């Protein structure tokens, strides 16, 4: 299969063997910083590689489903990573649970048993939701990678 489209895309959360439900899209960007090494007398800018960074986003419908006797909502799972509820009922509760990291597998079904994927140890940086007439409720999730993609990532391999 030489080309891939949306129907080949999947998202896995925290090592689950089941793909997250109702994922609209996912994306990632790897940025490579540079450090300038231009010196006096040079006519052209020179540089060397600096720090790399990896960030991404995904959009999931806020979709509730059941498997056997258990209810699931993968969008809510991600919301729960960074939205921590106060233990009390009064305003001003500033001490609550810290946010949780998450591991994303951004996956492409290439027809093989393993597929192509990148495993990102992520810190969610923002979650936004809005509801309006004529639209399905969804959450836009942005994240940054905490370090390099995890070993096992094969999206950079040609074969």
């Amino acid at each position, binding site marked *: 299969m030489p080309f891939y489209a949306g129907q080949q895309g999947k998202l896995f959360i925290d090592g689950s063997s089941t793909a997250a439900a109702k994922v609209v899209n996912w994306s990632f960007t790897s940025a490579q910083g540079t*450090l300038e090494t231009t010196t006096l*007398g*040079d006519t052209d800018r020179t540089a060397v590689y600096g720090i790399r960074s990896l960030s991404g986003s995904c959009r999931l419908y806020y979709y509730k489903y059941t498997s056997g006797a258990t209810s699931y909502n993968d969008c809510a799972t991600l919301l729960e990573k960074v939205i921590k509820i106060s233990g009390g009922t009064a305003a001003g509760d500033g001490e609550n649970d810290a946010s949780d990291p998450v591991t994303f597998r951004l996956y492409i079904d290439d027809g093989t048993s393993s597929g192509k994927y990148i495993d990102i140890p992520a810190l969610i940086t923002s979650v936004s939701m809005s509801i309006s007439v004529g639209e399905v409720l969804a959450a836009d999730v942005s994240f940054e990678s905490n370090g390099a993609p995890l070993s096992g990532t094969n999206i950079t391999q040609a074969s």
Partner: protein
Amino acid sequence: MAAVAFPNLKPSSRSYTPGTYPQTEFQAQNGAKTIVRYGNRRVDSKLQLSFANIADADAASILSNYEAVNADWDYVTFTDNDGAAGADASLASYLRESGGSGLKWRYDGPPQVDSVYPGLSTVSCSFIGVLDAS
């Protein structure tokens, strides 16, 4: 007192001031000034060099040069391949203090080394032109 060549590193930035002439000013209450000039040579010229994102080995060579110059009362010399890089000949003679000023470059304090990335450092050096008594 001997010359010690600066490492063969071109700076990423440079700042130079030629120094001042030694003198004292006296100002009378009516505003009149009397200036007593003590010499006809400028002194205390300043040179600041910055080396951005250089290899740690190159940063170490600058520190080694600092130690070598100060192990005895020696002075630093520059060439067009290091401290005077990128300057034309007329300005380079001032940057190197080789135009008959009699000034000798010495370190005006220790170099500052900032580690910016594994294996890379940014080094800042300050030099002062000293007119040694003969």
